[in-house]
């Protein structure tokens, strides 16, 4: 019987927290070559800019396409070719189109390797809240968020660690309405990257511009 040695946490204290591009580059680096990947609307779309073509990563967009390319230039805009954020995009060689039931079968059937989503909150067990603030006057809109959360083999979250009021968004229990239960495996933030395990909780993998001790003092969950 062998034991797996747990990787050590790496602290990068003498620097600024990661900016959005650094965060996107870190996520792109961690996506295995050849993966089928869905990038959520908003910040996660930046990850595409850091994927190397030779990695063979294929991007899925839930409105019905595999092999999505970069955003279209003004001359390339085709109203029939858009991504899930309704932004005009391009196709890559080997791209394919399909209808919505097939597109969501790719998620719900567990065929997608990775999805990267934004979040309002993630719980220490990996519960995700990213579709609704719960505000009484908000118009609820869910799109494909719940299907992605439970469908992809691995769910990565990309977000700022602290909300504008300073509260950490990685929390003991989500207070916002949930998107999915125990679905998030990794959380990439400006200050740190975390592994999340539904059984054993949260482990800090790497910090940026903050020590683990200070991180722990600003969060209300136990960090392994």
């Amino acid at each position, binding site marked *: 019987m062998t034991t797996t040695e747990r990787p050590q946490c790496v602290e990068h204290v003498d620097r600024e927290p990661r900016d959005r591009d650094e965060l996107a580059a870190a996520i792109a680096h961690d996506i295995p070559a050849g993966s089928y990947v869905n990038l959520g609307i908003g910040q996660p779309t930046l990850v595409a800019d850091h994927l190397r073509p030779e990695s063979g990563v294929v991007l899925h967009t839930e409105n019905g396409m595999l092999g999505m390319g970069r955003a279209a230039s003004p001359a390339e805009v085709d*109203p029939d070719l858009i991504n899930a954020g309704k932004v005009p995009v391009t196709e890559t060689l080997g791209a394919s189109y399909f209808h919505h039931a097939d*597109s*969501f079968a790719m*998620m719900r059937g567990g065929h997608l390797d990775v999805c990267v989503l934004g979040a309002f909150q993630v719980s220490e067990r990996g519960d995700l809240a990213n579709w*609704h603030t719960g505000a009484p006057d908000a118009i*609820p*809109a869910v799109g494909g968020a719940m299907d992605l959360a439970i*469908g992809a083999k691995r769910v990565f979250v990309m977000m700022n660690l602290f909300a504008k009021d300073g509260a950490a968004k990685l929390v003991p229990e989500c207070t916002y309405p949930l998107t999915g239960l125990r679905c998030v495996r990794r959380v990439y933030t400006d200050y740190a990257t975390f592994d999340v395990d539904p059984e054993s909780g949260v482990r800090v993998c790497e910090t940026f511009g903050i020590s683990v001790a200070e991180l722990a003092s600003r969060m209300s969950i136990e960090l392994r």
Partner: protein
Amino acid sequence: MTRTAICDTAAEAVAGIPDGATVLVGGFGMAGMPTTLIDALIEQGATELTIVSNNAGNGDTGLAALLAVGRVRKVICSFPRQSDSYVFDGLYRDGKVALEVVPQGNLAERMRAAGAGIGAFFCPTGVGTPLAEGKELRTIDGRDYVLEFPIRGDVALIGAHIGDRAGNLVYRKTARNFGPVMATAAALTIAEVSRVVDPGEIDPENVVTPGIFVDRILEVS
């Protein structure tokens, strides 16, 4: 000739849609949105409609225009709130339109189920969330699922690229989106296409929606 009617006018294409109908409307944003058929439906006058579509209208055209003239009682969709959904937003805040929010995959699969004669299905999406409240849950092989029921349309209005006189359709790029699913899920399926061709001009290997699912086709330029 086949049963599919090639319509000469938009009015003919939407004739007979009754008040209170459930209308499936294709499109994701404006891609695949059958705007000519929706404009004709506004002219035609049917009201108290239930609209099933991914979004609840963009800008002032298409679905937004139908909402603006007060013909819609209820919207079933996955993503009503967008930067340009001001027509829906106003009606919703004034209590003039009901909303059922459905996860996008459930929206597609519930219509697929309707079209395929499936009575209901257990699905993992939404377990533990507000959108599963009040629904039957079941654990199958250790995983939790929610019971979801079909969404059946009286009418489907869809946009496609090319249709032939046998009713077969092909789509273009991501404008395909809900079209093929909605075509199967409604009692009356009406497609607007940019070109109508003779049978045989679409390679049978490339047909996406077979003519059995399509009742009327309107060519729009």
